[in-house]
């Protein structure tokens, strides 16, 4: 795959932002590792589920005899700052993808690809960890296209929406954006599940790159093209 400079630039900026969001998100979660459904939730209400980890607040009953240090201050600052940078680079990427044809050529599955047979073949290839052939090294395969599309156009919009819905000021300006999700605690719970999906995507993404050849894939995403060897 020949990656354009903009795709490579936004990819690595987003990588940095995503890792920062993930680490700080976990830190924020530790201060209250309980999830609820609806508008409100606190230690007096029944949670939907709890994460069995110690907390950074002594007021949360976790069953552990100790309290972790509070990291919420800088975590919240960095979480929102990374989110802003990611939204701007994400927008740049999406606008570029529409204008340059990256979306149409590289991401949207072609007509012949969109059959159950092609889909089954692609899934089978993945389960057998089949290394991409010559043709595939120069374009995304069907599952790759579908998962990138899902991340870009479903998971990212959803995580931004649920994140904003937790803000009291945003909720005051756009109350229906909270109501549709089922309330502010529901928004927080969905935010958590979307994070889990994005984290799974990250793990599979890294695994696939290792299967396809880490050196060449990294070279492609840094310098723009894999080595000549891969073409043969």
């Amino acid at each position, binding site marked *: 795959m020949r990656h354009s400079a903009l795709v490579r630039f936004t990819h690595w900026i987003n990588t940095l932002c995503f890792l920062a969001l993930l680490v700080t998100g976990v830190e*924020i979660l530790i*201060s209250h590792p309980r999830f609820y459904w609806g508008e409100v939730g606190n230690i007096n209400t029944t949670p939907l589920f709890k994460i069995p980890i110690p907390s950074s607040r002594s007021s949360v009953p976790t069953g552990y005899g100790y309290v972790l240090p509070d990291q919420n201050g800088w975590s919240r600052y960095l979480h929102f700052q990374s989110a802003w940078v990611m939204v701007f680079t994400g927008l740049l990427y999406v606008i570029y993808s529409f204008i340059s044809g990256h979306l149409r050529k590289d991401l949207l599955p072609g007509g012949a690809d969109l059959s159950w047979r092609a889909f089954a073949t692609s899934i089978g290839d993945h389960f057998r960890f089949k290394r991409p052939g010559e043709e595939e090294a120069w374009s995304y395969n069907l599952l790759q296209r579908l998962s990138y599309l899902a991340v870009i156009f479903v998971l990212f919009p959803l995580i931004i929406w649920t994140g904003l819905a937790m803000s009291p*000021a945003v909720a005051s300006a756009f109350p229906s954006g909270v109501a549709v999700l089922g309330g502010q605690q529901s928004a927080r719970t969905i935010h958590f599940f979307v994070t889990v999906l994005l984290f799974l995507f990250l793990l599979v993404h890294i695994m696939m790159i290792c299967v396809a050849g880490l050196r060449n894939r990294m070279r492609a995403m840094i310098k723009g093209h894999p080595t000549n060897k891969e073409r043969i």
Partner: protein
Amino acid sequence: MSDLSRRKLITTGIATVAGVSGLAAARSLAKHHGLIPPDAGGFYGLGETLDYAAQRILTRHSMAREFPPSEISNPPFANPVDPLGEEFKRLQAGAFADWRLTVEGMVARAASFSLAEIRSFPSRSQITHLSCEEGWSYIAQWTGVPLSHVLGVVGTLPQARYVVYRSIQSDWWDSIDMADAFHPQTLVAYGMNGAELPVGNGGPLRLRVPRQLGYKNVKYITSLTVTDDLKRFGKGLGSVSPEGGYAWYAGI
């Protein structure tokens, strides 16, 4: 140097200059419109400024969601507070009859109000959400006098930009801008769920800013200072929150 790399160098140079001057222009424009928060310096200044500026542009006049009485959290929730000092216990023993709220700074008529005087002002009740930055929340009915009424009584001067509020707990103070100070739902609250505001929830007096997170809703308030410059307070970051690593603007 090949033509291609020279062209790249020139393009990158132009883009950098455009980017930097664009940022500088945006910064001076934001400053002119009062969109720069007091803790805008440092590594996280960009994110904090974008949070605050975006909210002021989009949500300046928005109203916090109000709920029907059926949504009031039962049992009500009270987050643990640090032990209250001797002064508080003395006032509590006297049923807070001697509790005062002083209002000073950039006002025409500085004043000190007793609880009885505060309660005699026109009141407002609202059922709103209180969310903590930690992730928990509850809904309660809050009763109090709108801060805008108190500010009207003392007469804020035109150059006023912020209201600093202090707790009887000496290391606890915060500030809000005039958009929040004059917002109709910002209350000097003394009642909760139809009764007096419990000590655990900030009684006898708590500043309720329902469009911001719990930590901006300082408990046991004893003074309001109207100012045009937060640099003069504490470390100049707007409140104790940034001094402890937390953002000054907590609408997100």
